[in-house]
């Protein structure tokens, strides 16, 4: 006897608990097995690139905050580096160190959120997520000390940062650096040896090295597949060339490797932060001669940086005016979505969300 079956097509999203925003997938199931996935994006499209063409170079900083709202400091950094290259501004050393501290803190926060939500997609009742958010909260508080906002920072300016760190920032940072390793250990105890997490994530959503590179996938996802490609190391921007750190590399490139690579990168970021604190010297945070209205000469610039999600770069074209002629964002989470279909084909429904979560996609950045 044969049972007649037929595939079911279902809309997952745009309103769904684990699509991390307004992402929509048109999924076709055969029983529990996925036979087709088509991502549909654009529900959060705000036209940031067009808006940037009507704003001055300083005002665009506020737009970049809102692209990847989990990692706005690195967005600022990438944009500012592009502007500095375009306008030929030499930043102040203290400003550069400060923005490195800010971006490494942001990396920890972003990875914490990514891993927390990944485990939430696995179905843990928000517990690891809340532990991660607890640590992120401390980082956001430090951001509030630095720049008066927790998420939409707008802390960086062409030439450095807008204001020196207040006195209370340094003790808070040191306390955080002392506490954080124990918190990461806690999370590892809770999850890294947990048999349920292991059987759920291992050998699921495997990305091979070549596929990854060919699809322009960057960041922790690429490193989890075993490619040693970290722009902080390979193409050091700011003062990353003065800092020694190691890059965690996975071997297989499945969801578990991506999870572990993020955990290890949080530890490495703590190391970088310690070296930043050792190296930072008093001085001005921003050169006096940088005007409020930057007018770069004609030309274009593209400075990719290693954001928590991957290679993030702003391609700016100037026509000599006060606002960019064209501003293109190379958004890592947008491009990391390229292989989503190939990753989940043949897996079960439950794995779809775990794989999607392990890519660490931020819809604000995907749709811009």
């Amino acid at each position, binding site marked *: 006897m044969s049972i007649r079956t037929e595939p*079911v097509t*279902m809309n997952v999203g745009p309103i*769904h*608990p*684990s699509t991390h925003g307004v992402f929509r997938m048109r999924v076709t*199931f055969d029983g*529990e097995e996925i036979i087709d996935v088509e991502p549909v994006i654009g529900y959060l499209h705000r036209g940031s690139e067009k808006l940037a063409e009507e704003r001055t170079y300083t005002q665009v900083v506020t737009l970049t905050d809102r692209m990847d709202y989990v990692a706005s400091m690195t967005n600022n950094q990438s944009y500012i580096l592009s502007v500095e290259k375009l306008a030929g501004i030499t930043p102040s050393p203290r400003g550069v160190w400060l923005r490195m501290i800010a971006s490494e803190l942001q990396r920890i926060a972003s990875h914490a959120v990514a891993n927390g939500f990944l*485990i*939430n*997609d*696995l*179905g*843990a*009742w*928000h*517990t690891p997520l*809340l*532990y991660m958010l*607890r640590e992120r909260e401390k980082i956001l508080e430090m951001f509030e000390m630095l720049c008066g906002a927790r998420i939409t920072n707008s802390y960086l300016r062409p030439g450095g940062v807008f204001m020196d760190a207040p006195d209370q920032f340094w003790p808070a940072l040191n306390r955080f650096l002392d506490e954080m390793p124990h918190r990461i250990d806690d999370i590892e105890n*809770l999850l890294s040896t*947990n*048999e*349920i*997490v*292991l*059987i*759920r994530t*291992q*050998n699921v959503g*495997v990305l091979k090295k070549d596929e990854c590179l060919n699809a322009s996938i960057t960041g922790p996802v690429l490193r989890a597949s075993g490619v*040693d490609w970290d722009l902080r190391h390979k193409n050091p921007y700011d003062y990353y060339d003065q800092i*020694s750190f*190691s*890059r*965690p*590399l*996975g*071997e*297989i490139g*499945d969801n*578990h*490797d991506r999870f*572990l*690579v993020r955990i*290890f990168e949080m530890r490495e970021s703590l190391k970088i932060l310690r070296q930043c604190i050792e190296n930072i010297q008093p001085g001005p945070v921003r050169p006096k001669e940088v005007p409020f209205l930057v007018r770069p000469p004609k030309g274009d610039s593209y400075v990719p940086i290693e954001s928590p999600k991957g290679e993030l770069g702003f391609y700016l074209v100037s026509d000599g005016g006060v606002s960019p002629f064209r501003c293109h964002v190379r958004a890592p989470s947008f491009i990391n979505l390229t292989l989503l279909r190939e990753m989940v084909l043949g897996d*079960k*429904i*439950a*794995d*779809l*969300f775990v794989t999607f979560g392990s890519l660490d996609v931020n819809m604000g950045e995907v749709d811009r």
Partner: protein
Amino acid sequence: MNTVMDSVVFKFIYCHLVSSNECVDSFRILGSGFISEKYSIIGFLITSLILILILINGALVGVLALIWGERRLIGRFQARLGPNRWGPWGIFTPVADAIKVMFKEDISPRLSDKFVFVLAPVLMVIPVLMIFAVIPFGKATFLTDLNVGVLFILAITSTNTLSVLMAGWGSGNRYGIIGGLRAVAMLLSYEIPMALAAVGVILMAGSLSIIKVIESQTIPFAIFQPLGFLTFLIAATAELNRSPFDITEAESELIAGYMTEYSSMKFGLFFLGEFMATIAASAVIVCLFLGGWRGPEIIPSHFWFLIKWILMICVFIWFRATFPRLRVDQIMELAWKALFELTLINILAVAILMLIWPDPTILELWIMTGINWIIFFVSLWIFGKLLGPKPEQKDGVSRKIVLQK
């Protein structure tokens, strides 16, 4: 009727209603009953109704308490406070929840199968309430002492599979259908290890009556046969659709699974049924494995039962706060490849031990316990090796994170 009269509570109410020879005078506080013995059946019915009323209301209050307790406790597990605004320590939060649920708009989708859609939540609650009938809440405090009590519980709990399937099918929603089908697959599979785990208990007790099971627990069966306890606990968690087996609801995958289209009081009934099932299942586990109301007689037996009951519920909440969800095929694998065999091993071990010591003394009981624990660890180790996570990939690539200097 005789077994019913063993219950203190029943006798107490009954003797105030009926003037009967069965009643000992010391039981009466307010004088003798007003119904003559000829019509004692009326008194019997009225007593039953009163007790049912008490029990159902008690169960509802228990659900409210559980909602509050679960939210507070999960809050604390997650290093936050939980609801604490409405009333002292937030104890009125479930009341507010109940009021909110009642006043929500009752929506039934156009594509739904109306009859099935409405019937499903009702079917969810009734079987759970029926479990309470056979649970002894203390020494000589029970509604009825069914001589097939364990069988009754196993039979009754399996009907909520039907309710979940009806809800999933009736709502005409694809998430609902997937949730309902998952539920059928999972709940039916876990009936078997659950029943087989109970067999170990029945073997030792020599009776299907829950009172007899409790009385036979000189050493609580949780300690005596850890394998049986573990499998029963896991199977019960799965039967309850609680984390880590909540694939039927699967918030992060199926939104709310079979409950997706339900709103208002229909949703409330599902909620009620689920929480009541947690309470009932904890009571069953306490009776079968933790010695029921037995305990040192410093405090009354009812309190022993209550303490064990609450602790058992807390363990369920603890599991929910800690474990991620299993995938559907892994859940089936666990049921058929691990729990099924483990329960068989347990039955075999218990049976052989009983053959060796047909009438064990306390010392012999402890020796049996020790042997059972050895079997427990050995079998867990073997099954972990066979079914646990494999560190290597299929083609033999070893897994490690390399720190590139």
